[in-house]
């Protein structure tokens, strides 16, 4: 079973709205709302959050996302109060973007830690240009000599034929399809590019039906990863 999610919000309607959104993107992920204070007021409720936490856990752990201020404290307290506090984690991420990224990652079968990382990276999904993305990746390798044995870079272009382009569901399917490939995949549309695993980043490209997109991949699985993306596009992102 995938990692579960809990949406801790001051507002019941907001928490339920985020859960509704996730239901579309990640149908197999158990996401539970914990919003508002009984009866019908704004605020976060420790008991309700703990109950949602228990409800969302199907064995793989739970990631909690929060809206603001005291919601983080309530979420943290609920985690610390668990018999096994390592079975859940609070993600420091923007609520909606983080929840969508976490849901896509959980749907892809990723482990708790990876789902948290996906949520926390959600805010920075879009990069300016592919060149910058590559530079950033190399900078992290700031050893004495930069490795010259870089893995081959594979590039390809394709035209989006599906009706909605790279909208939420296709973006989620794309992130899911790349699970398990050891490759960095970047999508370019016009001036912008994004990490293909970042649902928010890919959606932010605004690529529509008929648009031409570029795919660049590096890493040991670069070729097979691009083949997988092409298959997905050929099937009009029907999964």
């Amino acid at each position, binding site marked *: 079973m995938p990692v579960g999610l809990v949406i801790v919000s001051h507002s019941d309607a907001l928490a339920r709205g985020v859960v509704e959104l996730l239901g579309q993107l990640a149908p197999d992920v158990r996401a539970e709302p914990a919003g508002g204070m009984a009866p019908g007021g704004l605020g*976060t409720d420790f*008991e309700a959050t703990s109950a949602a936490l228990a409800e969302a856990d199907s064995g793989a752990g739970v990631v909690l996302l929060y809206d603001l*201020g005291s919601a983080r*404290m*309530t979420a943290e*307290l609920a985690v610390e109060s668990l018999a096994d506090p390592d079975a859940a984690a609070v993600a420091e991420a923007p609520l909606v973007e983080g929840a969508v990224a976490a849901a896509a990652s959980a749907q892809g079968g990723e482990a708790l830690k990876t789902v948290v990382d996906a949520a926390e990276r959600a805010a920075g999904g879009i990069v300016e240009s592919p060149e910058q993305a590559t530079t950033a990746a190399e900078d992290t390798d700031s050893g004495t000599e930069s490795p010259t044995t870089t893995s081959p870079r594979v590039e390809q272009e394709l035209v989006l034929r599906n009706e909605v382009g790279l909208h939420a569901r296709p973006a989620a399917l794309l992130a899911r399809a790349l699970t398990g490939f050891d490759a960095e995949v970047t999508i370019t549309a016009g001036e912008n590019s994004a990490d293909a695993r970042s649902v928010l980043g890919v959606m932010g490209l605004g690529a529509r039906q008929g648009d031409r997109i570029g795919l660049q991949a590096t890493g040991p699985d670069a070729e097979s990863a691009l083949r997988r993306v092409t298959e997905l596009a050929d099937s009009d992102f029907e999964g």
Partner: protein
Amino acid sequence: MSCTAREVTAAVRRGAEVISVHRDELVELDRAIGDGDHGENMDRGFRAVLAQLELADPPTPGAVLKLVATTLISSVGGASGPLFGTAFLRAASTVGDAESLDATAIAASLRAGVDGVVARGKAEPEDKTMIDALLPAVRAAEESAGRGGEPGGTLATAAEAAEVGARSTVPLVARKGRASYLGDRSAGHLDPGARSVALLLAAFADVEGAE
């Protein structure tokens, strides 16, 4: 001289009474720089604590503190529920199963409580929060216990330091919590959370000093 569950329970009851008496004052303070619910939330929380104490008779000081913690967490709401709840929870785990608390144990439990609040709320000194009352209080308590002070005297010193610390929040510009949204306009007001800390410690000192 040390405090058993009976004295700690009496201190908590006195704390609830004092919060209730100052409910409207806390509401006013919070209305100036927050959302105005602090007095009501704290009063509701401590009323719930009193109700729980009627139902249960916790056998050790740690058990009393734990009951206060879980009740406040469930019933106060806002940021104060998790913050005050965490303080009592950490204090409870520090004293463990001890039958009674001497001044050193009281100082250690205060220290654990303050560390918990800092970890939970990520506030720093002079952010205009309850930390500004708690930090001087715990330093005063540690110093008093280190000099061989009695529990009552140690709590009295802590309460005085908390009072001074709370008053020091008046000129500060808030950098944490709801009041921070006001920016410079938060200056000139006493922080309600710091005020609550000072009130509670004074109430605790009141009871232990009378023992």
